[in-house]
């Protein structure tokens, strides 16, 4: 979500609790937050405000789902986890517990995945608590720019003959 954008943010939910003194607004039940092409769906969302405005968003769901539609500069992004945190100052999205990020065919799985919304960089980590957990990444080969060479197939066995 872009606090410097011209697009307003719409929030729909079953219930809401606005706590002025704590600077926190809590929305529960079928929560949907939309700003232009970006949306967040969750069971519970907490919006935190400081003197400058909206500073942080915390979303909880089973899973919570963050989606960014494809734009001219960037592919579609679908990211989900049990907990999603957005920090407005750093434009950083953090996905905790059962995090799965899909972007242009690439898939990142892990207990902790960070996604920089400005430059769209994804970093994935294993959760500290579970040694057996692993980070899984499936990166689609990029189409070669020069002519003649075919991309590797899904199983990576080199170019397939297509007659």
């Amino acid at each position: 979500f872009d606090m410097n954008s011209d697009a307003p943010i719409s929030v729909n939910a079953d219930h809401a609790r606005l706590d002025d003194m704590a600077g926190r607004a809590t929305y529960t039940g079928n929560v949907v937050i939309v700003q232009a092409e970006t949306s967040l769906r969750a069971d519970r969302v907490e919006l935190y405000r400081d003197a400058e405005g909206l500073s942080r968003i915390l979303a909880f769901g089973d899973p919570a789902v963050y989606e960014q539609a494809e734009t001219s500069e960037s592919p579609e992004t679908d990211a989900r986890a049990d907990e999603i945190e957005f920090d407005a100052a750093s434009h950083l999205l953090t996905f905790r517990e059962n995090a799965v990020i899909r972007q242009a065919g690439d898939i990142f799985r892990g207990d902790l995945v960070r996604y920089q919304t400005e430059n769209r960089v994804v970093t994935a980590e294993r959760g500290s608590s579970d040694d057996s957990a692993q980070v899984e990444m499936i990166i689609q080969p990029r189409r070669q720019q020069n002519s003649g060479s075919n991309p590797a197939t899904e199983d990576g066995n080199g170019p397939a003959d297509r007659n």
Partner: protein
Amino acid sequence: MLSILRRRPALTYALIGLLGAIFLLMVWQDEESSGAGSTADLRGPREPDGFIVNAVYRAYDQTGQLSSRIESARAEQFEDEQYALMEEPESAVFEKETRIPWNITAEAGRYDLNTELLLLSGDVRVVRSNPGMAPTQLLSERLTLDNLDRIVHTEAPVTLLDYRGTTDAVGMRAWIDDRIIEFQSEVEGEYVTDNIKNRR
């Protein structure tokens, strides 16, 4: 008939006197009823036990601080049921800590003198000023001010206008001193970003 009156002047004078008495009696009754009429008009068709013009009700907390003040151009009190009906009540409920008032206006109000519940109806507006920011406004058609528990609540649709933007919902409960608002269902918020706000 006239020739009889000319021959008997005494009868004439008696008749004139009778007509005069009847005329006076009619005038007197008219005044009597209008007198009664003006009192009945003042009291009003609901015939309250008492009525106050430019009424002011004040409530204080245990420390003696003014906790709320309700003003009304006209309040009609009904002793048996211990309530007062108010025209265009204007209330001010003062936050304990900050002393900032929540100013509440409506077309009509019913104030329960025992429970200090004020049931407001018709274009209900709650306005709280925010130093350095746009005021917070709550708009609804029905609202209850519970001065003992220090909350306002409604089951009706409500709109909140504040620094965030606009929030619509159905059903609301707000804790005055804690400055917490809970919306019960169908919450729809449209919030402006700081970019839009700065351009206003």
